[in-house]
């Protein structure tokens, strides 16, 4: 128990963390007039990648054509800069707390290979879903709730509701 407590103390108190996160969200709204996000930056990178590597394809395919018309400089976006900041901030926090370590985090009951396979699959689903849902938990759900958006609450309910419903089938991976 002592070991767990030692490690638990290294994480912030979740309520304090929540208040701090809420303050960050307020700052984003106050300064930049928008909330936080994450998946949009992935989209920017994908579009930029396609534009650079296979520009002929980008000119022919519907999505890239529309997107490039409305976003002439996909990488010079607020979200991309914000995500870069996230990487830095997480790194700083991790190093202060001594959590920097290359490892595959998985339940002791499964192999790390299994964990990694599910991680990739989960990412694919999430990537697709975030585009369909116009946002992920940070962008749509969290920021949406902060400004009382109906869409934010709906997306949040859909994400967490589905995950809860399916939790039983994936329980072996976690507990």
């Amino acid at each position, binding site marked *: 128990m002592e070991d767990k407590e030692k490690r638990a103390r290294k994480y912030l108190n979740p*309520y304090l963390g929540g208040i701090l996160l809420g303050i960050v969200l307020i700052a984003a709204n106050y300064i930049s*007039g*928008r909330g936080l996000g994450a998946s*949009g930056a992935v989209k920017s990178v994908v579009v930029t990648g396609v534009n650079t590597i296979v520009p002929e394809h980008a000119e022919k395919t519907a999505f890239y054509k529309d997107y490039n018309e409305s976003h002439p400089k996909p990488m010079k*976006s607020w979200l991309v800069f914000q995500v870069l900041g996230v990487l830095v901030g997480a790194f700083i926090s991790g190093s202060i707390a001594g959590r920097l370590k290359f490892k595959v985090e998985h339940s002791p009951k499964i192999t790390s290979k299994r964990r990694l396979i599910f991680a990739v699959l989960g990412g694919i689903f999430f990537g697709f879903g975030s585009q369909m849902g116009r*946002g992920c938990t940070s962008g749509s759900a969290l920021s949406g709730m902060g400004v009382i958006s109906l869409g934010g609450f709906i997306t949040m309910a859909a994400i967490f509701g589905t995950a809860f419903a399916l939790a039983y089938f994936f329980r072996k991976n976690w507990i």
Partner: protein
Amino acid sequence: MNSRTIFSLVFIGLGLIIAAIPQNTTHPYKISAEDLLIEANSRTQYFSPEELAVLLINKDPSIQMIDVRDPEEYEKYSLPNAINIPLSSLLTDEWVDFIDQDVKMNIFYSNGSLKANEAWLITRQLGYENNYVLEGGLNYWAEAILNPEAPASTSPNEEFAKYDFRKGASMALGGGALTSSSSSSSAAKPKITPRAKKKRAAGGC
């Protein structure tokens, strides 16, 4: 448990305060007189009859015609799918969601352009966006589109091109004299759900 109780009480307390105080509904972003003058003089708020004709022929869904004349005149003749907001009732609650929105482009029109311009000035001063004026009003519309005048044989080519376009528009829009009644039922109010005016700070997820 103590810190959690404090946490809960603080939030309940703040919540009660914010729930009790009435909603802050000011539109602080109104336009100054100088800016309004510049905008009015720039004439960017005008749609020419030709521009409108193109939009109507293409059944462009992003425009909304607003007839600011009296109801009797509206009943006699109105442009396709126009709604009637008499100038005197422009600022009533009934219509605020139509003139203060960011989904469609509203085009005010009247017989000349006096009333339409008044509507535009008033709504612009309140900071509402997406409102425009049909240049010359219905009088010019009839003259230019519905019954275009053939240019003299010595006129430059552009005049002929413009005339051809107007003739085509006239046929597409049911030209002739101003006697036809409005094409759609003007009684039903188009469905617009209330939306607050938003200026996109930046998009994305």
